[in-house]
């Protein structure tokens, strides 16, 4: 069953376009990544799902039922972390969690476990929120979104402000929640993060869905780049590598886009003198370029 189904949804803010003709679905029990640069429409889409914004066109289904202005039945089953999590500054973390828990009928059954996993100390719990660091505030937001063990967890840029250790702990918790059957929808502008934890990904740019792919397909289709640094004396001419395209040259540094078999490239590289070699992670622009080229062709 589709837990989230978005059908041709558009949102306009007067003449400004938020998202246009958005369609995708998220299946029960999957971790769905919503990937896009800042301002692409990720937060608008999430706010539409949470009924904080209402669509100008199109329909949204949650748990198989269409949502409208009067319905809030499904929110009991949702945990939500906004992109900018701003809890009541004058409350302590514990007061905040207890206060927000009163709005839900599900008890905060995962709270203790999450506090422990995120190293959220007793001192943090009793500290006023205005005195918390950004990282601790973000941890509090994640705990708030998940503590009642919701069926659907919607997280807008959840790892912003978390240190690498806490990010790992967070990914681990997501995997465990997925194993227990929860559906997770998370937005990010970080491709490696989405590749690491998601099953499928929707890529959004300028308010439009570029593609919805499984992570396996995305990995297959994503472009690889190679940055080659040659010794200065050998750098007058760029080496010709099979199955690559030279896209940039700066002094003795050459950047190639690999679109063929990586093994033949490596064999060729073994023949020449090299000062340094790098295979950087592709960024979002590389991914967009791939899909735009594909769409245009």
């Amino acid at each position, binding site marked *: 069953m589709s837990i989230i189904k978005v059908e041709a949804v558009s949102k306009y803010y007067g003449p400004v376009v938020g998202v246009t003709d958005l369609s995708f679905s998220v299946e029960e029990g999957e971790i769905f990544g919503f990937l896009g640069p800042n301002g692409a429409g990720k937060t608008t889409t999430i706010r539409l799902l949470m*009924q*904080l*914004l209402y669509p100008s066109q199109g329909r949204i289904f949650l748990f198989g039922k269409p949502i409208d202005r009067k319905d809030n039945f*499904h*929110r*009991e089953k949702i945990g939500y972390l906004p992109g900018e999590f*701003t*809890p009541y500054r004058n409350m302590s973390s514990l007061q905040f969690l207890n206060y927000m828990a009163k*709005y839900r009928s599900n008890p905060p059954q995962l709270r203790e476990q999450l506090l422990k996993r995120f190293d959220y100390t007793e001192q943090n719990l009793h500290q006023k929120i205005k005195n918390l660091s950004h990282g601790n505030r973000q941890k509090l937001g994640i705990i708030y979104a998940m503590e009642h063990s919701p069926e659907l967890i919607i997280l807008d840029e959840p790892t912003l402000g978390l240190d690498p250790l806490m990010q790992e702990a967070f990914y681990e918790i997501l995997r465990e929640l997925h194993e227990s059957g929860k559906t997770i929808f998370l937005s990010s502008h970080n491709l490696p993060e989405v590749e690491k934890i998601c099953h499928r990904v929707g890529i959004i740019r300028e308010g439009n869905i570029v593609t919805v792919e499984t992570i396996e397909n995305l990995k297959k289709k994503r472009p690889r780049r190679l940055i080659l640094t040659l010794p200065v004396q050998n750098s007058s001419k760029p080496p010709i590598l099979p199955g690559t395209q030279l896209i940039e040259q700066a002094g003795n540094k050459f950047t190639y886009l690999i679109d063929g078999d990586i093994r033949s490239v490596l064999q060729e590289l073994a023949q020449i003198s090299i000062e340094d070699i790098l295979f950087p992670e592709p960024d979002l622009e590389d991914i967009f370029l791939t899909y735009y080229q594909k769409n245009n062709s």
Partner: protein
Amino acid sequence: MTRSYYIIKSLRDHLPFLILAFILLGALQTLLLTIVTTTQLFNFVRDFIQQLPQELQQFLGEEFIAQFSVKGAAAFGYNHPLVITFLIIVAIIFPSKHVAGEIENGTLELIFSMPIERFSITFSLWIVSVLAIFFVISGCWLGTFMSKLIFSQAEILPFSKILLIGINLAALMVCINAYTFLISSYSREGSKVALQAAGITLFFYFLNYIATIWSVVGFLKPISIFHYYQPQKLMMGEANLGKNLIVLGLLTFFLMLPTIYKINRRDIP
């Protein structure tokens, strides 16, 4: 329909200010009546005014002289600028801070993403505002009552009249609260809403004042909401409380309807 935990939290947020207003305005009522009772101010002011030119006496009016009597001072206590100012702040602060203000700082997003109806939050906030207004007015009632006890004014000062003046004052403040709600439902900046609501209130206040002292524009009086609150006349039994309450009540009702509609349908950016 209401959320008790939301009501308690919202009241708690402003409790220090509400307690301060309760004590201060209560003390003011006691002080005013103490001054009038212990200094025979009424006779002194009446004698003094009789020395003034006829035109000036007319300008000051009978209401001015009357406020130096026990009854007049009690009524004036409920129309004192300090009382009006504190109550306007109470009337404006709840909708401006908890609707537009919370949209601005992002906390309303958290509340509205919960499994509740937006109406229940709007209605609870309205209840909080009304409770806060009555709480502060009850400070005034207590102050007057204390004075009555201290100076044994039971016969001179009918407490039922004081209660009715307080109810009329509360109706006026609930009306101010309602248009602040309406402005807030269209806005996303709490401070801007508070300024706009204060500006409208000030406009109504001066309109009523000018229309009272300048007969040429006297026909404008009914436009001002302050026309429907006349404590001195209520004390003397010359005003129609029922009419005042109906006008202010209807105004509140018709301001709250679009507010609820707008909050239910608006985007939370």
